[in-house]
């Protein structure tokens, strides 16, 4: 099948997955102003921001003769569960016939999940599928491991140099064929990063910020105003609540230990029931970040996102009880870079000032 998918985070992972399964993969374009404008124009006005971005990406792909678009589903009362159907309708109304294959979590419906995988596996045997998934999972882990290092080192080194290494790493990873090569490339870049590690100060002088929120705006730097780089710029390390490995663990692999659930369960203290999206999990992650000694939380909320609106409303209580500052930023196509920068900078200044008083 000739297929594509929405752009989110390290796209090489999905591309590799479908490529190894023998599909003809069209790389989706990275969201930019044009795509976002396109998406906003053809999406319902009240839809949440990630929906609009994805509409834009799909429309941009329409001249590529695709057989299908593969995307993930959502569960609970979050609107992400309807994305597939609504996108299909929008594309149809605009005269584009394309199938949208939605991968829902196997934990919701084991059978349906297998049906979908059966379609996607094409002519590959089930054992091959097992092997491919393993390679892709290894790849994701390697990428996430390097990215987590990048998110620390960029705080203490020239941002351009570190960014360049990260971009090169992603390019190199795209060429891999087996797990041995993944390891090789991973080590190559970890080695390159080692010489920067001397710049990390002693533990007491390190400041760490946890980024939580709706998965799409947390994972996709091109629509979240490169929030991680902004935080890094002021000498703060970052870590996200969402990495692709987490998503795969939750949504694609039935055999992985679901220890993330333990973190997410902590969220029940503030949001008792699952309300869709990652609201409950995010609260859990916020508490977990505090327990791991983080100094602050940045909460990203797409405009029009219901679950994150609920989690925003409990942030004040959480912040007070756990004594951790929280900054909520609402993101949509109207978000201006300067506004985000001002808020992030003031937030980080505040955290730093708390820890020392200078003589005037």
């Amino acid at each position, binding site marked *: 099948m000739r297929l594509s998918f929405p752009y989110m985070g390290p796209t090489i992972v999905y591309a590799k997955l479908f490529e190894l399964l023998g599909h003809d993969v069209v790389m989706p*374009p*990275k969201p*930019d102003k044009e795509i976002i404008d396109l998406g906003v124009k053809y999406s319902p006005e009240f839809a949440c921001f990630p929906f609009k971005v994805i509409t834009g990406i799909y429309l941009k792909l329409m001249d590529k003769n695709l057989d299908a678009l593969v995307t993930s589903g959502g569960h609970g009362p979050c609107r992400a569960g309807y994305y597939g159907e609504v996108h299909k309708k929008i594309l149809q109304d605009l005269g584009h016939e394309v199938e949208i294959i939605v991968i829902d979590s196997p934990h919701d419906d084991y059978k349906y999940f*297998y049906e979908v995988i*059966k379609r996607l596996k094409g002519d590959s*045997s*089930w*054992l091959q*599928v*097992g092997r491919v998934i393993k390679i892709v999972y290894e790849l994701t*882990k390697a990428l996430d*491991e390097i990215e987590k290092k990048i998110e620390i080192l960029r705080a203490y080194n*020239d*941002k*351009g*140099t570190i*960014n*360049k290494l990260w*971009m090169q790493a992603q390019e190199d990873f795209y060429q891999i064929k087996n797990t041995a090569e993944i*390891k090789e490339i*991973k*080590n190559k870049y*970890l*080695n390159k990063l*080692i*010489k920067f590690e001397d710049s990390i100060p002693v533990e007491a002088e390190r400041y760490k910020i946890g980024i939580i929120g709706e998965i799409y705006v947390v994972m996709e730097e*091109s629509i979240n105003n*490169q929030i991680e*780089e902004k935080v890094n710029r002021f000498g703060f390390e970052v870590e996200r609540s969402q990495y692709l*490995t987490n998503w795969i*663990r939750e949504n694609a692999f*039935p*055999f*992985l*230990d679901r*220890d993330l659930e333990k973190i997410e369960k902590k969220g029940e203290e503030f949001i008792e029931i699952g309300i869709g999206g990652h609201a409950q999990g995010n609260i859990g992650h916020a508490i977990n970040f505090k327990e791991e000694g983080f100094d602050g939380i940045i909460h990203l909320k797409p405009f029009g996102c219901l679950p994150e609106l609920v989690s925003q409303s409990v942030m*004040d209580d959480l912040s007070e009880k756990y004594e951790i*500052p929280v900054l909520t930023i*609402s993101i949509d196509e109207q978000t201006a870079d*300067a506004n985000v*920068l*001002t*808020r992030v*900078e*003031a*937030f980080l*200044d*505040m955290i730093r*000032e*708390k820890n020392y*008083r*200078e003589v*005037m």
Partner: protein
Amino acid sequence: MNNLYLGVDIGSVSINIVAIDEENELVFKLYTRNSGNPIELVKEGLAKLREEIELENYKISGVGVTGSGRQLIAYVLGADTVKNEITAHARASTYYHPEAGTIFEIGGQDSKLIIVEDGIAVDFAMNTVCAAGTGSFLDHQAERLGVPIEEFGGLALEADRDVRIAGRCTVFAESDMISKQQYGFTKPEIINGLSEALVRNYMNNLVRNRVLEGEYIFQGGVAANIGIKAAFEEEIGAEVIVPEHHDVMGAIGIAMLAKRDVKRSGQESSFRGFDLTEQEFETTSFECEDCANNCEVIKVIADSKVIAVTGDRCGKWTASLIGDSAANANVEGSSEKEEKTAAKSSKKQDEDLNKNSEELEANLYKVDLEKEKQVMKELEELEKSDENKKEDNSLV
């Protein structure tokens, strides 16, 4: 020769320039409306500063820039400190009022709430949606009612009756205002209603469920409006203090921060000197198409010489500014050497890394082996059943 520290606040509505001395005393103060050309206004401001004070007695030892237009002006001036307006406002406020607990700051296009404990900002909020609750909102309504903004606040105090005006959005407020005028409410009453709407908005959007504590400081351009001050006092039931230099607090704060930074680093100020008032500045931008990031790269040019390049994420264009090819070559040469020595030890490192990352993996990404086996078995069975089905089909 006394040290002088410049503070420049490039706001959306006003541009403020101050100069403070070593004792934080205000030596120069300028508040001008931002008519849309910040570089020219800053140049004029500096020229005025040069006229008003005897520069022979002073040395510019530090420059700080804040406000939404801070990035560009920082390059133009050669600023030592570039910081957001929240930090700057908090700094000035807590200096003049060490007992401050809550700072209300309402400027042209944004409003802020800063919560202070023991002289340190511990929490803040900034308007998220739109102009409602900012100076622009009042400006617009004043114009609409034909009242100069300077008299706006005083008029509100003359109101006899209360009138509730919908203040969530500028446009809706306007239609509500027109309709209330039909009921025979006077101008002062309408203005009072608008002031209350602004404060109500501020309370709902920024303060939310926070507990506020005194002293209450009210600053920013809107603090000149005694109507709003009165509305705040009524809302919180306590006295609100408007500092003497409420309109330039951001500029004072950033000048103080510049002083601190220069002292801490012990370096000379990077101020580009008063000659810059004679220079022509220009900014250009282009989209770099080297990769999918499509960074918007901005160049700042002074008298046809590029003084700053910014916006690229990989550092390609920023590095081009350094332009000192010899220095670059040196860096590259040494890094090559490093790589060679690195290659020698890399094998051992690789082993260590493998070990390390395996441990990390084992801890981070636990795989339930039993479950994995079971799933693989299920997969095999599935495959078999698929094959059986195919055979069935062929029989049919």
